[in-house]
């Protein structure tokens, strides 16, 4: 909609999909210029929950910043712990024992399932269905109990240390995980029958909100948003880190580029994460969970380092600039939803408002991670 066309039609008005709105799942504000129910121009306004993580990164020691990584994307916080721990370990050259690497992968994948379950409940709630939220939260509570027994926190984890993990996992965690996987595998067909095959959901998502590959490249979208547009890019396979090469799992990729594809990518990813957890539990080696000579005060060599991990929403990257002291000189957090959301204003041009909200639901946003 070129500019002068908008002025000619006097029927456009500005609507605030404001900071306090049930569909934005946080404090994201979108300034919508609307013509009736069609969106002429959408402009997301950020910063309503900017919590200065990067400024805090510069006046805390390396270890003190770990709790912050748990509060960035609190739905899949363990992958952020993992990214930060790995970045520092690479810079310092710390060897992580085998068992700790396995525990890291198992807990990160369980956290990914919990994050996808919450997304599933909240997304169908956006489209109007309330009951799936109750089922999804019920499953998610099982995972939170398991993770809490090991890490001590339900949401904002601070479980990884440079060189390993804080404490070891015990037997009832392992049996608990196996039972949970059996239980969730028995419930997934019910979710698919009741929700995925529901004609209303299909009508709301099929061919709605197309995001082309070129748009993904220009905006740098990663994660399920990108895999819904037919690109097989997953940091676990693209830049194999930790012990992921030992697991055999595949990356669900859908080529329809619409909201239904992004929805199906996340539903299938839950199954893949369960496969990883199962293989991880079977091959769990014995041994220490903390590196023998992990330095108490971390002083990485001067220079800058980049490290990326596959978080639940995309590739989370950390750029550390260290000047050899025990506090980082600069700590840049590359947030996946920041780039995913940046394509929203171009993607929802000329769409109906309810379809734009369905599109925003499939982008799976966590606003404090965008505002950092």
């Amino acid at each position, binding site marked *: 909609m070129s500019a002068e066309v908008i002025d000619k039609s006097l029927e456009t008005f500005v609507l605030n999909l404001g900071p306090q709105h049930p569909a934005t799942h946080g404090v994201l504000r979108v300034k919508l210029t609307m013509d009736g129910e069609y969106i002429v121009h959408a402009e997301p306004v*950020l*910063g309503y929950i*900017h919590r*200065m993580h*990067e*400024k805090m990164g*510069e006046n805390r020691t390396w270890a003190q910043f770990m709790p912050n990584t748990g509060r960035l994307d609190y739905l899949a916080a363990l992958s952020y712990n993992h990214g930060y721990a790995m*970045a520092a370990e*690479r*810079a310092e*050259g710390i060897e992580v024992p085998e068992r700790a690497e396995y525990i890291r992968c198992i807990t990160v994948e369980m956290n990914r399932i919990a994050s996808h379950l919450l997304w599933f409940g909240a997304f169908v709630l956006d489209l109007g269905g309330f009951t799936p939220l109750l089922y999804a939260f019920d499953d998610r509570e099982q995972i939170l109990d398991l993770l809490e027994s090991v890490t001590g926190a339900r949401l904002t984890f601070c479980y990884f240390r440079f060189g390993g993990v804080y404490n070891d996992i015990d037997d009832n965690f392992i049996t608990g995980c196996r039972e949970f996987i059996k239980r969730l595998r028995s419930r997934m067909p019910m979710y698919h029958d009741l929700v995925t095959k529901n004609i209303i959901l299909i009508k709301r998502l099929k061919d709605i909100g197309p995001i082309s590959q070129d748009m*993904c*490249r*220009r*905006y*740098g*979208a990663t994660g399920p948003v990108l895999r819904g547009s037919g*690109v*097989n*890019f997953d940091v676990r396979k*693209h*830049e194999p880190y930790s012990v992921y090469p030992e697991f055999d799992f595949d990356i669900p990729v859908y080529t329809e580029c619409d909201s239904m594809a992004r929805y199906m990518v996340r539903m299938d990813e839950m199954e893949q994460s369960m496969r990883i957890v199962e293989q991880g539990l079977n091959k769990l080696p014995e041994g220490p969970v903390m590196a023998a000579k992990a330095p108490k005060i971390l002083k990485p060599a001067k*220079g*800058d*380092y*980049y*490290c*990326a991990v596959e978080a639940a929403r995309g*590739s989370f*990257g950390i*750029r550390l*600039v260290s000047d050899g002291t025990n506090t980082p*000189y*600069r700590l*840049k957090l*590359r947030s996946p939803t*920041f*780039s995913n959301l*940046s*394509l929203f204003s*171009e993607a929802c041009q000329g769409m109906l408002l309810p379809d734009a909200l369905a599109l925003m639901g499939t982008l799976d946003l966590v606003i404090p991670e965008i*505002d*950092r």
Partner: protein
Amino acid sequence: MAEMGLAEIKQALSGLAVTDEIEVVKTIPAPPPAEGEEPGKPVEVKEKIQQTMLFTPDYAKKGYHLDVKVTPEDVVTAARILIGQEFFLEAITGVDWIKEGQIEVVYDFNLWQKLCRVVIRTRTDRAKPEVPTISDIYSGANWHERETHDFFGVVFTGHPDLSPLLLPEDADFHPLLKDFKA
């Protein structure tokens, strides 16, 4: 590994690499001691050598494959080369080197098919930092540049709308500068 892709990119970007003067500390071995006196100590001397700033660091430690330093004007040409090779922009980072009175802007690019992370750096003067925008090539850079402007005050010339993104609309302070007082 992305050897082929890397060599291609390296060759393409080598034209833009800036040659800088770097101080290299060299130690000259002590002269052979004459009979009488005690042996001389190796002496350290600082030397300035011309070096094109194009490195291929070891990925396992640093996390990227190619690191090129370009002048601010060449950022646009580098971005055009990279989007031609189907790279996507991962992040734009600002770093405030207050001792050298410069602000460094770091661009991270990566590929979908092959693992090949390219880092483009530029340095601008700290008093009046200006870098041409690449938001017309990479639309995602629009927000990254607005955020870097928020935190460091780097003016991206040609950017459609440099209003604060994460800070309040009327914010005129740049918090991530080293000399920022609340």
